[in-house]
């Protein structure tokens, strides 16, 4: 009777060694799989921002957020699920495609605003940026070609307007 949802958390941490391991411990201990994780620097020098996507039961996740907040090096941790936020990720997709089908692949890329960033006789790499649904839709169309590699950055998120993330 688990109600699993995908949650996107924004975690602001002091930029100190070990902080990622501590956060990962909290998720692992309660059986949460981290779907994606992006760690990057922020405006302030000593502070990093992590965007974590995880699938799980909201009550359980509440507990995880509270435990993550308890970590000394975590400045704050917020679940942005359902909030007015911009969520984007990037994907690189390598497709085995020869000259015959190239046009069709490029049409798909064009429709989703993806860029071709590498092209050889037999392959090309597309770079797409957008929300996860858009990337999924593009991948679905590309599946009829031979997708040989896929690499996604994981989601990054920012609250819209004046609100801080």
């Amino acid at each position, binding site marked *: 009777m688990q109600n699993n949802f995908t949650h996107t958390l924004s975690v602001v*941490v*002091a930029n100190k060694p*070990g902080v990622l*391991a*501590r956060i990962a411990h909290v998720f692992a201990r309660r059986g949460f799989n981290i779907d994606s994780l992006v760690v990057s620097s922020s405006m302030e020098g000593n*502070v990093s921002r992590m965007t974590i996507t995880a699938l799980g039961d909201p009550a359980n996740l509440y*507990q995880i957020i509270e435990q993550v907040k308890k970590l*000394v*090096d975590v*400045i704050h941790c917020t679940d942005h699920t359902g909030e007015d936020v911009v969520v984007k990720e990037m994907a690189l997709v390598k497709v085995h495609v020869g000259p015959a089908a190239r046009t069709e692949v490029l049409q798909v890329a064009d429709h989703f605003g993806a860029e071709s960033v590498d092209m050889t006789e037999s392959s090309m790499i597309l770079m797409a940026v957008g929300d996860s649904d858009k990337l999924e839709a593009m991948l679905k169309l590309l599946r009829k070609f031979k997708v040989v590699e896929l690499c996604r950055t994981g989601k990054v998120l920012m609250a819209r307007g004046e609100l801080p993330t």
Partner: protein
Amino acid sequence: MTKTSWDGAQILVKSLEAQGIEYMFGIPGGATIPIFDALVTTGTKIKFVLTRHEQAATHMADGYARATGRPAAVLVTSGPGATNTVTGIMTAHIDSVPMIVVSGQAATHMLGKDAFQEADIYGMTMPIVKHSYLIHDTNHIPRIVREAFHIATTGRPGPVLIDVPKDISMAPFVGDPLAAMELPGYNPEAPAPDPATIQAIADALLRARKPIILIGHGVIISDACTAIRTLAEKIHAPVTSTLLGKGGFPESHALSLGMLGMHGTAYANKAMVEADLILNFGSRFDDRILGVPARFGRDAVKIHVDIDPAEIGKMLKPEIVCLGDARQVAEALLKVVGNPDTGAWIKHINALKKDFPLHYRRTGGLKMQHIIEELYTLTGGKAVVATDVGQHQMWTAQYWKVDRRNDWLSSGGAGTMGFGLPAAIGAQFGRRKDLVVSVSGDGGFQMTMPDFATACNHKLPIKAIVLNNSYLGMVRQWQELFYADRKSGVDLEGNPDFAKIAEAYGALGLRIKRAADVRKVLTRALEYDSGPCIIDVQVHKEQNVFPMVPAGKALEDMILEPRPRRGRPPVAARKK
């Protein structure tokens, strides 16, 4: 701390001293020789106590902290020295006890290269510390020590580990000994109690006819004892405590129900089941008191007062939540509470106490309860009591009424066997003038027995009582009750003569075999004060602790009494 020609080890010792550390327990090794040398060269006031095992060192620091409210430090070497502290750190962490553990480490350039006695203790202990440091720069030492203390002792306390590579302790210190803390993510100040929530609690209390106050370790940590007592007396509510809450409210008080839970008093558990309001101060609703969370206080308004937001809603959903320090909340509540009509309830509680008292028979073999009760009578309950874990612990919790904060030291969350003796040693270092007793079973006692030498070296007049039934009694009890009495791995065959062990250390060894000798021998032990003594009490081998709420059952499923004869089912407490 103005001299600037210190090295890392010296500034570490001076920084610890500046934080008011009085005792440091531990064992040296290759990676900590510079720090041990600094204990000499700095002429520090910190007293180092050499132990026989690092686990015992952590329990000593733990016992010291629980008995005094102040943290002590542990100093161990790298590798096995550090890993031996893991049990003690976990014990302190789960029971919210402040502690500073300083471990030596291989030199920085050797980290991750399987150097001799290299262990990633920083990584290993991550889930069991409040915070930890691996020092990368000698100049960071004063700031890190300051932060470590601040973190260990504020908010919900806990252990902090500082891992010090050998090159860091040997390098010259050229930093600022008064460097400020950098803890942007740590805000331990308890929020001031929210007036609306306080009023909501007061209103709920006024509506309640059968309120009960539940106190946990938080009451002792925040010293809410006086406020809780005044509150209980003002609203005429009975008070029950968790194992770690013992001493938060005087157990000899007429409103006290003693401990609740798995082996709590029958009247505490029955009162909890019947209550229409449960006011919890600083207990985390752990599984040993809840039984089945979904069936705990089903018909009661549950109010949870806790300083740690992560505890709220963890085990059950309370109707009212009050984040804050137990003392501040209790004091705020005192100002607004009314006078609920609890006359009938108190009358009922008193009837429960009369109808379902703790009891045992003094005939038919020497009982553990007899020893505890007699010792309580002889000392008037004026002692610091440290227990181990198991049957003796539960009987001590039942029969030893703790009236004062910090007089009860027991490993609750961790259930660490071997805790009692070293905790008593730590407590005696912190409270030289007070009587300190450790009560252990024969199983747990042998887990840290070598540190009896530490008590002997320092001539600590600890009374180490070994309630010896030649079994790992609690497990044997479960095997008898729930596994058709199939004994497996519980017979402590080959136990030594514990009185002779004491004598081998040049200490006093006493022995009790008969009920008739209890008073005489305990009196002898209490009179002896030139060092520690061991009292080997050979008790009835197959006694069981009751009342008992079997694991996975609710409080109302409590088994009240031992079955009168083999083969008969236990008497259930629930009314048909």
